[in-house]
């Protein structure tokens, strides 16, 4: 296998991480919505925590994207 095709395969494998992170983001918003519907009065106060959880989950997907871009363009 030559280097160019190995690069492309590696970038494709790194892109899987983006999809896995989407599960995390969906879980954060899904569980927030579940509890927010049970107690709508308390949901507004937890919005900051919602976005912190979202940011933490999203960052890992963005890292995977960054790795894919590094493999494609930096090497």
């Amino acid at each position, binding site marked *: 296998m030559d280097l160019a095709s190995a690069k492309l395969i590696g970038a494709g494998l790194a892109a899987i991480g983006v999809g896995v992170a989407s599960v995390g983001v969906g879980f954060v918003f899904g569980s927030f919505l579940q509890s927010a519907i049970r107690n709508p009065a308390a949901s507004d106060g937890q919005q*900051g925590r919602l*976005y*912190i959880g979202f*940011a933490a989950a*999203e960052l890992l997907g*963005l890292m995977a994207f*960054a790795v894919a871009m590094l493999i494609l363009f930096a090497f």
Partner: protein
Amino acid sequence: MAAEGKIDPMHQFVIQPIAGSFQHGSPFVFTNSALWTLIVLGTIWLFMFGGMKRELIPGRWQVAVEGLITFVDDMVNVNIGPDGKKYLPWVFTSFVFLLFANLMGNMPFGVVAAAHPFTVTSQFTFTGVMSIITFAIVLGVGFWKHGLHFFSLFVPRDAPLVFKFAIAPIEFLSFLVRPFSLGLRPFIAMFAGHVLLDVFGNFVVQSLNAHSAGGVGLSILCFLFIMFVSMIELLVAAIQAYVFAILTSLYISEAVNLH
């Protein structure tokens, strides 16, 4: 750019000199990044200046500016506590700058002329420096207020001794990674979104050039997708600015209150 069907999504992030050049070894080059930073700052200045009237019955503009300030003020007060007012300037600056820079990067000025917007926040140098400023504030405030006691931030308070020894290095490592992740987040979000837009924009043109019914259909599909992604981008632009501001106030709160 789309020569022989090759898509080059990185072209939009190239920093090009407008006045002066990199060749003569001078570091003072006026680039498109500098130009768009000035445009963003000018827009912020116009927006704030137009709304900073102290009228008893505020107009629409004043309500918009006051709403923005109250939004960040509430966030800082909730997260940091009574001391929060002192740190409002930096949190507000970073929030408004990121928000405006992200949004200006999405503006379709390129339709009118060759004035293609350059997203200044799509460079890690920008967001990285902003997160370094945040951490300078965190470290400065932490050591100023608590002295060497600041290191107790890494040790959980009501934990057994064994856990303390186990958790302290992990907390320390997570603290060291924070400036990196804080700056990386807005940068990658903008970067990824613009790459996606560029790739699908190329798909629109290329499938139109295929001169077939299927090509036209694909082109329309891609165009609709671009519209969808553009709306998502506007949302992401606001969310990333919000996340940066809320994480900044959280980190400062840890330095001020220790846990």
